[in-house]
Every structure is written in C-alpha cells, then in structure tokens.
C-alpha cells in the first residue's frame, strides 16, 4: 500500500516535504501498524502513539484530509496513496508530532474539575442513574485533539475561542448533579468568543474518534445560558 507522509525535522530541513513509502498490507491492519512499518524502514520518522486501542489519545493525525486516531483507523477504509499529515493549525515539532500546549491551556481555562462546595458525606455523594446518564457522551473524551484542530472557528480564533474539547469538558461539569459551581462556570464562558464563536459547522462531531458530539454540548451550554438569562 502506498503512503505519502509529511516530514519535517527543524534541525535538518529548511521546510517540510512529503515522502513516499510503501508498506505491505496485512489483513486487519490499522494505520498505526503502517506508521510503525514506515518507522522500521526509516527510524527517523516520528509520531506519538501508545495504547494501540483508542483510549490514550496519543496518535491523532490528519489522514487523507480528516483527523483520525491512527490505531483505530483501518487501512482497508483508506484511499491510496494514503496522505498522512500532522494536525492542521498546530506548530509542528517534528514530522507528525505537533505542539499541543495551546489545546491543553484551553482545557485548563474551563476549571476542568468537580467543584462540590457542601461538606463531603462520609460515603459517596448520591447520584441517580438518570443524573449519571447526563454525563454519557461527555466524560469519555480522550483529549486527542482531533476535534479542535478540525474546527474552522478554532483556526480563525485559536487564542480566543476555547474550541470543542474545552467546551465539551465545561458541559461535562455543568451536567454533573454533584457540581456546585454552575454560575461561575457560565460566567467564565460569557463574551463573544470563548463559547459563541461556535457556528455549528460540526467538523468536531465528524472527527471525534469516540463518537462524541461537542456541537451538541455547546448548544446545551448556550441553552442553559439563555434559560438563565430569562
């Protein structure tokens, strides 16, 4: 199977280039297996990966124009030559490895932890199955970054718009019956950019490897704000 892979080493390359590789395709092979095979041919080829089963979120890359996790992307589903690039819109450190610091900083901006102000009970804080259901589709995020780097609103305002991942996280805590900081959380999202730059283009939904729906989460936050305003 033919691949065209983005290469850039700041120490030796004046600019990035695409390099062709060929990998023998085996039954059931994933894109990560192919990237490892490429690495065996050329040890200087660099990408992040770890769990190999789509839970650690390390190996997000841009494949034939879409952001995907390499370890759960079947080669059988890809058109040749497979073009593999780093996430768009991020500074490239080397080859497919991008600098994710802005993405993590945005995550931190939404106070991504449970805030429970009452004294803690001796046992668990009670939560009904229905209340717990509200977290489904929100808590499973693996912070791979596929969504944020596929979002045009993020490309235009990366320093102001929080991006789908951080907003999904904000919604995860707003939706938690145990959380007692709803007002503060909503105040933090006020203004024209942080939340409201989302124009429901839905690229984030398309690219999420865990089938989560940040657009819906953002809509949900907007709805809470609207309800509170009235």
């Amino acid at each position, binding site marked *: 199977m033919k691949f065209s892979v983005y290469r850039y080493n700041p120490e030796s390359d004046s600019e990035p280039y695409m390099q062709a590789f060929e990998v023998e395709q085996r039954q059931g092979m994933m894109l990560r297996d192919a990237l490892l095979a490429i690495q065996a041919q050329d*040890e200087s080829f660099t990408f992040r990966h*770890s769990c*190999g*089963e789509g*839970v650690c979120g390390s190996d997000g890359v841009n494949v034939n124009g879409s952001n995907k996790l390499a370890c759960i992307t079947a080669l059988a589903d890809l058109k040749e030559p497979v073009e593999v690039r780093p996430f768009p819109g991020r500074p490239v*450190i080397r080859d497919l490895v991008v600098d994710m610091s802005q993405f993590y900083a945005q995550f931190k901006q939404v106070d991504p932890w*449970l805030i429970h102000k009452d004294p803690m009970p001796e*046992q*668990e804080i009670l939560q009904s199955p229905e209340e*717990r259901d509200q977290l489904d589709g929100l808590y499973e995020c693996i912070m791979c970054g596929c969504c944020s780097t596929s979002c045009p609103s993020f490309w235009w305002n990366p320093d102001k718009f929080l991006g789908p991942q951080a907003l999904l996280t904000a919604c995860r805590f707003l939706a938690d019956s145990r959380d007692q900081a709803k007002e503060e959380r909503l105040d933090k999202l006020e203004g024209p950019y942080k939340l409201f730059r989302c124009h429901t283009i839905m690229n984030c939904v398309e690219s999420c490897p865990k089938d989560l729906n940040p657009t819906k989460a953002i809509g949900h936050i907007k709805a809470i704000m609207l309800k509170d305003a009235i």
Partner: protein
Amino acid sequence: MALEKQRFDTLILGAGGAGLNAALQLANANLKVAVVSKVFPTRSHTVAAQGGVNAALANVLPDNWHWHMFDTVKGSDYLGDQDAIEYMCREAIPTVYELEHNGVPFSRLPNGKIYQRAFGGQSQNFGGEQAARTCAAADRTGHAILHTLYQQNIRAKTHFYDEYFAVDLIRDDEGYVLGALVLNIATGEPLLIESKTTLLATGGCGQVFRTTSNAHINTGDGMAMVLRAGLPLMDMEFFQFHPTGIAGKGMLITEGVRGEGGYLINKNGERFMEKYAPNAKDLASRDVVARSIITEVREGSGVGPEADHVLLKVNHLGEDVIAKRLPGIRESSKIFAGVDPVKEPIPVFPTAHYVMGGIPTDRFGRVMPSADDDGDHLPGLYAAGECACASVHGANRLGGNSLLDILVFGRLAGHNIIDYVKENSAHRSLDEASVEQAMSRLQKWDAKGDGITVSQLRNEFRKTMEDHAGVFRVEEMMVEGVEKVRQIRERLSQVRLTDHSSTFNTNRTEALELENLIDVGLSIAVSALHRKESRGAHSRPDYPNRDDKAWMKHTLYWMENDRLDYKGVRSQPLTVESFPPKERVY
C-alpha cells in the same frame, strides 16, 4: 554546557493512577512536587483499565473488607503479604469514596450509590457465594479515574514535566536517592531534578512479551532504574496472562464481560470452564482461566481456521446491557476483531497483562532493599503502583485489585512522604559522579556507525520472552530462554541509532526503553527458572504442585551476576488472624 537543575520536595516518576494520587495528596499539603511523565498524563496506561476497582462497599450484595482480604490472600496463592493485604482491603473503602468526591463518574444503582459488578475470584463469607465488589464506571473505569485525578492535580497546581523521559536515579555514596536525570523529549536537553524524596510510579513492563494488552510505553523503566541502582526486584517470575485478549492481537476484553454474565465456549460450543472450575466457572481466578483456555486449544478444541483461540459469548446479555455496561468492549470488538458482540461471540486468547512482582516495598510504600525480614527501608525512596510489589498480589492478582493497589498505595505513599519531608527538610548534597554515570547512559547512544537497529533486537527479545517465559514453563525451555536473553543483552552494545537529532527523537527513547525491557526481562526469566514449583501464574508442568515448605517465600533478584535471594512471606495480618495456606480450588 552546564546541566540545568531544578529542586523539589518530591519527585514523582510516572503520571498514572499511583503517581497522580500521590501527587494530589502532596500538592494539597502544599509540598513542592514535580511529576515527570514520558507522555502527557492522561495517556498513561491506567487510562486503559476497564472493569473497575474493588472495595467492599456492599452496595449490591453483602460484603466486608475481611472477605475481600480472604479472596486476595487466596487469589495470591498464599504468596501475598497479609499485613499489606489487610491494609489495602480496609483502605479500599475510603479511597473509593475519596475518588468519587473528586469527581469520578461511577455508574450508579437506583438508590444513587456506586454500581458494583461481579469479578473473578470474589466471594462472600470466606469462599461462599459470588460477591459484587468491583466499582465501575461502565467499562471505562481507568479512564474515568485517571482523568479525574489529572483534573484535580490541575486544580492543586501540581508541577508537571510532560514528555520528559527519566534516564536514571541519582544516588550518593551512602545510597540515598537524591533525584533523577531526565530528558526533555521535545528538545533532547537533559535536566537534573533534585528532590528530598522520590516516588517511582512508572507502571508495568508488559512490553517484554510480544502479545500483550500493555501499551507501547509499558517498558519497566522504573524497575530497570532500580536494578541499575544496585537494588533488587521481587517476585518477577509472577506475570499475569489475562484470559481474554482479542485473539491474535492482544487488546484486552475486560473480565467485567464475564462478571456481567458472559462465558467462554470451545469449538463444540461447550462451556468448558465448568470442567476446570465447577463452582466459580468463568469467574475463577485469572491464572486458572488462562491455563484452561490454553489447555482447550492444545487439546484440539480451539476455534478458527488455525484452531488457535476460543470464543467469549456475550450476545445472550442483550443489546441493552451491552450498551449500558460494556460499551467500550463492543467498540473494541468491532474495530479489532470485526465482530459485534451483540450478534456474535468474541474470539479470545490469553495476553500478557500484568506483573505481580516489582520494586519491593513495605506497606508504607518505602523501598525495602534487603532480603533480611527485619531489614531497613531506604530513606526517601518510595515506589507505588504496578512497578512496586508490596506484596498484595503474591503469585496471582485478582481482577479489580490493580486499580485498587495503585490508588491505595499511591495515596498512602503521598501521606508518608509528607511526614518524611517534615522531618527531613534539607536537600542532601549531590554526588557529581552519580550524575555523570546517568549522563553516560545517555551519551553512549551518541555512538555512530553500522549496527543492529532498535526494532530488530526488540522484536527478537519479545519473541524470546514469549517462547521461553510464557504461561507454561519447563526447565529446558527456560534454561535456553535465560541464555538467549543474556545473549540479547550482550548484543545491545551493537545497537546503533540511525537518528541522532535532538528534537523529539523517538529512536533514542526507544533504545533507552529497550535497555530497560531487557534488564527487566532477564529478571523475569532468571527468577522463573529457579522457582521449582507451580504457584499462581507461575506454572511449571515439571513441578506441577505448590510446595509451601520449600517455596512459600519471595524471590529477590539483583542484576549484578543475576544474583537471587529469598525472604519469607509476611503471613501475619495487622489486626485479624492469619489465613493459613490451603489448597486453592474455585
């Protein structure tokens, strides 16, 4: 160029459940704590834990910590230290409540309490009816816990060194550990972190085997650092093969599938676990189930064109239960096995999963470097999580006790470090020679020229370990295995990097990891060769019985001359009576 230095009260190597739970206690107590991780914290392998964490909350069925303790001692095939096991089972309860308070999105029961499921090796009333002790967040419990702990550490302002690789510990002449040399992966710059206390929380070493549920990062780095520092590893021959990895691939299918009512069948559709474990059946202990599957396949009852695996039947649970309780498993089965468990059974075979052995510690997380039963701990050095051996798992770990171990002992190490730093507030002076030794470990990879590649030697090594130190182990095969691994270690000096750049050089970090893997692999092979009995996960067809008289003792392995020594099992619990060894049947 001068080596950059930073100082902290505590240095934690590793950002999985153990490292992050320790860091959280320390940061909440306003200690200056640095967490070094070779990956961004939420990518640590705790994230992949599926089924859950054991605690006798009694939310679903009657339960108490003493029953949990009995099951753990029995599960360990009487090699676990009963003081540490009692402590863990008692502390399980407040530890899980604390996690819930920190925000872990556990699944819930109709009364609002935490959902608990049945898991293997669990019983009520000291070996009676099946218990339900495993607290679960669907089948993504590790993910839910790791993310929550990372989130709380952000709040507590823990200082993270993300994507820094720990090269080696720094020791002085008296043996005190004073910190570590670490490598900034993105820039290739070394950094010296000085600390009053150091916690090793570097996780497991499942990459020593070719077929494994473990991530690429699980290369036994902390264990190998300990070996190079002249300290021993304990009970390394005890390596758990999880019964249900996806056949031919190794990805994990949680025991929770069987806990929810799934069961194994062979090519005749026969529910074969009834033969091997008439009472517990599919929920017998992991070592028992793994051996049963391999026996079925060897006797010709395997499934598939190669007759090389068995099937895990789930579809009778119905789509609702599968969607609610096992959504991640459905996803993995579809992606990696091409089957939807709602319709078809999942092809499974045992996969290397978890190392029961590790860095010997007492029940306070302090590293114990001596074979002497009353031996002293090493002041200021701690270990917790899969890299450590307290020893709570003995010869076989029960499902749901791994998350428990890392969380309880990570938390506890944090508390003990707080006390230690109060009494030892000064940094000891740093030994330059020790720093140079660590630097030389890095610099030797600067050698250029032709040689073997990292991946060539790694593939050969992992295959050798699989062939010679797997589920069933006999003398000749193991003698050969030890010899082969020794030769592989010799050939490490012929490995050359083809990439010598500074920026994000994975060729270099993988070479450092390979070195760690080989050192740890040899500790497994040598320890296993010398234990002439079958106990828990260590199964010797040439010595099929457990031999309590000769072998109810822990193995200690030192790298120098592959030296072994032994120390007694601590059979005396803290407050209750000892569980004496009995025949182990399920």
